[in-house]
């Protein structure tokens, strides 16, 4: 650990751990914190952090919790999403918020609980979940998350249950007296033949510069299906580290859509493990950046089962003096014969000052594999802009029409339609001068 990371680490170390007194939990938290302190923050010499420097973060310090979070008054309108009116699990600054949540009358077969409550009531069943990864080498923020998470989402779908109404999991960053660093975890288990739709929603109430660290593990048992829409619309000053791990057993299927528009610095690590035969993953995502935002998406897909499939389509739009990073890596392991792996990442620079770094990577150690990957960074085509303008569309309308079309392939599969249109509108509204949209 270098001296430079001291303020950040000290503020984390000073964070009083959530009271527990549970031996195994205390130990695993202490180990994880020790691992973080030993490694410090990742730096750009680390290949996975090459384009995302955390120097500015090293100098900051945070308080460990917002004492008022659980009881803060939040206008429900700030988290409402069209087409999402089923059960809701809401956290404000990392702490469960009962008033914003809707956990009564859960559909049969769906179990949703805040993690802190489950730990307080009956910790033993969580022992495996909370300690199984402690021994693995993990990145700094995952370690920090294991050490400091106070709360989170605990979701289970019983075998065969088909849960169609989306479960709204809200992480709201709300104004507080000082910047807060909050860490939350999630465990989502979808049992055999079951189906779940989740909308993971990072939203903001008021200005703040909090640090949010959310790590969620999804386990899809045999023939389970997960539809996940992740809308990241955090406060402009916020720092976000997210990690989503998906483990798929045979015939399991995950369809992910990710929209990234918020935060000053936002990093999302996605790890998809296609362990079971015939498991498959579709990942789609789009980011739109303005001002001086920095967004970094890291997508690592591992094909291990036979006849597995992954199809990934990601789009990035960068304006102003922003920087977008996409790292998509697919590994087809030995024995994963018959894998089909497709990855496309296209990016659009809307200004001279914006920068996008994209690194697709493909590693194949199996036979009969179909794989393709490609990445581009370009600008709006002047010929197309002129064509649209020559038909009467004002220049800005024409630009927005093209940006929307560019991202449509990534968000076109979002269901229901009202939610897709909302995502579309969020994305366009985030880019400057979009008010002329016809």
């Amino acid at each position, binding site marked *: 650990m270098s001296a430079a990371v001291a303020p950040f680490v000290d503020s984390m170390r000073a964070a009083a751990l959530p009271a527990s007194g549970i031996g195994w939990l205390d130990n695993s938290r202490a180990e994880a914190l020790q691992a973080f302190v030993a490694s410090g923050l990742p730096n750009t010499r680390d290949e996975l952090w090459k384009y995302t420097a955390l120097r500015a973060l090293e100098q900051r310090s945070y308080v460990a919790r917002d004492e008022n979070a659980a009881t803060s008054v939040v206008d429900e309108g700030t988290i409402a999403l069209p087409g999402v009116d089923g059960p809701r699990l809401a956290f404000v600054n990392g702490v469960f918020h009962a008033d914003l949540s809707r956990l009564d009358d859960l559909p049969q077969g769906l179990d949703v609980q805040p993690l802190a409550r489950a730990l307080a009531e009956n910790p033993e069943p969580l022992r495996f979940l909370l300690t199984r990864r402690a021994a693995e080498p993990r990145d700094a923020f995952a370690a920090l998350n294991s050490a400091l998470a106070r709360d989170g989402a605990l979701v289970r779908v019983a075998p065969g249950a088909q849960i169609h109404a989306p479960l709204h999991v809200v992480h709201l960053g709300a104004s507080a007296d000082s910047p807060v660093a909050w860490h939350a975890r999630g465990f989502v288990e979808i049992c055999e033949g079951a189906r779940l739709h989740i909308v993971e929603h990072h939203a903001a109430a008021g200005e703040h510069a909090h640090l949010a660290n959310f790590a969620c593990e999804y386990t899809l048992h045999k023939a389970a299906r997960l539809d996940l829409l992740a809308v990241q619309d955090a406060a402009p000053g916020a720092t976000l580290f997210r990690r989503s791990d998906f483990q798929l057993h045979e015939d399991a299927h995950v369809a992910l859509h990710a929209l990234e528009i918020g935060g000053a610095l936002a990093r999302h690590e996605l790890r998809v493990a296609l362990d079971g035969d015939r498991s498959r993953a579709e990942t789609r995502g789009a980011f739109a950046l303005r001002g001086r935002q920095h967004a970094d998406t890291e997508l690592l897909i591992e094909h291990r089962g036979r006849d597995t499939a992954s199809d990934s389509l990601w789009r990035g739009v960068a304006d102003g003096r922003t920087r977008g990073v996409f790292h998509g890596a697919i590994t087809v392991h030995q024995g994963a014969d018959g894998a089909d792996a497709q990855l496309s990442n296209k990016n659009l620079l809307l200004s001279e000052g914006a920068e996008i770094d994209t690194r697709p990577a493909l590693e194949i150690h199996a036979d009969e594999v179909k794989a393709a990957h490609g990445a581009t960074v370009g600008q709006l085509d002047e*010929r197309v802009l*002129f*064509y*649209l303008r*020559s038909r*009467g569309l*004002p*220049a800005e309308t024409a630009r927005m*029409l093209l940006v929307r079309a560019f991202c449509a392939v990534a968000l076109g599969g979002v269901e229901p339609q009202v939610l897709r249109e909302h995502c579309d509108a969020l994305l366009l509204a985030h880019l400057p001068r979009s008010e002329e949209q016809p």
Partner: protein
Amino acid sequence: MLKIDNLHVRVAGREILKGLSLEVKPGEVHAIMGPNGAGKSTLGNVLAGRAGYEVTQGSVTYDGTDLLQLEPEQRAAAGVFLAFQYPVEIPGVNNTYFLRAALNAQRKARNEPELDSREFIGLVREKLKVMQLSPELLNRAVNEGFSGGEKKRNEIFQMAVLEPKLAILDETDSGLDIDALKQVAEGVNALRDPGRAFVVITHYQRLLDYIVPDFVHVLADGRIVESGGAQLAQELEAHGYAWVRGRNPAEAAA
């Protein structure tokens, strides 16, 4: 309606138009013919307002205003339409959506009420009588995967919906077989109107068998070197462009 006076235009530092003058009145159809490299497409692009065309001398007046001062979308709203020689493909932008957005943007700029989707569909049905396009093409992305003929018919269909006052057709006949050529010409003829003028830019006389112009102009080396009636096109076809150069040695050399 349109008055081009002594127009000089540079593209990438090279002078392409060298003193072109032309006057077009409402209801007239003017054909601009000429060999490759004469500046035909430059004329179309500079009238529609494409970037990269530097006017160094001369003027273009349209309905009494300085056309060159207007942005491309302002020209469109004022009634100028360019049918592109190479219509672009726009993946992800629905043909019908785009056309309605364009029409409503023009109407908004002219302080006319915008059309709702029901009114627009009605208009599309009516205009499909002018230029047949399969509903499948209407619902696809703009020009994406269209054949050459379908792209050109889509241009004429757009023109029918947008109802411009001045339509410039830039080599709309290029790459068309005879059937497609006839269809395009029929579409254009259906839109001929005492209030609407056409400038038909073409390399070959063939199109003018079907769209019979009121005037034919020969553009060579950046200026109009010969003007006449519809029969001039036939003479050109018979004798070739060298014939015009031979008749106007001083101008052709200038």
